[in-house]
């Protein structure tokens, strides 16, 4: 079957997407597992010791991919929300909703590993650095969006409200980042200036990229699993759901 003969937009309906998500989820989780193992091998055995930071810099291998993913997932989530609002497509809302907990988890991981890296490097668990502060606010935005969705009883309204808030937040994130950066320059005395990262060894960058890809594959896998749960909960009454359950 040629590419053009498959009706790709067929998968825009939850009914058609449900089995597809079921096959994609283990696939992406397996990719994540494989890439993760390669990345960890590079992080611990191939990458040399950093002459400035010692071995503590190995935390960066998860901190940076987690921070990247936290922002990337928020963006993707807002995009799904926008698509949902523009086309009134239910599956888009479900995808946006499925991504939120994974994004919040990565934000939390980035914050915690950032603190664990900061303690030996800066001598403090928490520094009001622009990046850390923006990450904290990003976590608030994730939690707010999720709280909004769970507080609204009617699913269609909850979906749309979630999408509107995610979009407003997406516009705000760069503004927040810029404002915190500006604020840091204002209070120079109180903040610890970041040691500028020395030219990163190529192997470090590779390790980070591979682990970021692993996180990316993991996020897709987890989102697919969650979107299946969401579809199953929403379409409980639909006949196709019962047929599919019997077929499985």
């Amino acid at each position, binding site marked *: 079957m040629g590419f053009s003969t498959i009706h790709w937009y067929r998968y825009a309906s939850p009914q058609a997407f449900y089995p597809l998500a079921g096959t994609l989820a283990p696939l992406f989780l397996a990719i994540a597992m494989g890439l993760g193992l390669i990345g960890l091998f590079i992080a611990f055995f191939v990458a040399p010791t950093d002459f400035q930071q010692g071995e503590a810099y190995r935390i960066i291998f998860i901190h940076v991919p987690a921070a990247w993913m936290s922002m990337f997932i928020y963006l993707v989530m807002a995009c799904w929300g926008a698509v949902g609002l523009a086309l009134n497509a239910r599956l888009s809302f479900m995808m946006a909703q499925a991504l939120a907990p994974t994004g919040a988890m990565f934000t939390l991981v980035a914050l915690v590993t950032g603190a664990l890296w900061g303690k030996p490097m800066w001598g403090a668990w928490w520094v009001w650095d622009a990046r850390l502060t923006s990450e904290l606010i990003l976590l608030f935005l994730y939690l*707010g969006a999720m709280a909004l969705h769970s507080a609204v009883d009617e699913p269609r*309204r909850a979906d749309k409200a979630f999408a509107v808030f995610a979009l407003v937040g997406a516009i705000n994130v760069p503004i927040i980042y810029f404002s915190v950066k*500006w604020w840091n320059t204002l209070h120079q005395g109180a903040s610890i200036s970041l040691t500028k990262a020395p030219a990163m060894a190529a192997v470090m960058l590779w390790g980070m990229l591979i682990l970021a890809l692993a996180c990316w594959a993991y996020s897709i896998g987890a989102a697919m699993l969650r979107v299946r749960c969401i579809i199953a909960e929403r379409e409980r009454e639909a006949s196709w759901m019962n047929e599919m359950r019997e077929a499985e």
Partner: protein
Amino acid sequence: MNAMLRCLLWRDLQLVVRRKSDAVAALFFFIIATSLFPLGVGSEPALLRAVGPGVLWVAALLSAMLSLNRLFAADHADGSLEQLVLMPVPLTLTVAVKTLAHWLTSGLPLVLLAPLLGLQFDLAGDALAVLTLSLLLGTPLLSLIGAIGAALTLGVRGGGVLLAVLVLPLYIPVLIFGAGAVSACAHGMSPWGGLSLLGALLVLGVVFAPFAAAAALRVSLE
């Protein structure tokens, strides 16, 4: 169309005048909250001068937030909000006018009161002027961003706390630029950086926030 919007503005203002207690309570909160800080952190003039701008701004922000659910909730409860949505006027403009009315009754009193409370924190004359100016630019933004949150949480159970959780992170840039301008002035630096950024945000907010709030309102009333 203009006459209709003017009518709406007048109506909203009159409603607040008749139900004075809500607006006055938010204002009292502002006064009480700022007065608590010297009792908490100590009354050293140097310390108060250092924390004053931040305290006044945070208190103004919380006070503006307290009155947000007044924006749509009462009209929603008595059904008049659905009539307003049906007006032959773009909903964005209706929302903008209601936000303006909210600012006139909650933000503007804060602006007028702030220099007086600034004296409690031993702020100098130029810092007080910058404080007033920054609040004048910043409080409309608080109403504009808050309108989006108020529209999203309309009629939701536990809406008050949820509104705070949604809106406070979005308020952060306003707080940073506003308080930053005042403390820059207090430290003998130019406040114009913060003030101009606040002005830029205000322009952005005036253009986009009513649009987003109208979209949120449509979602909530569907």
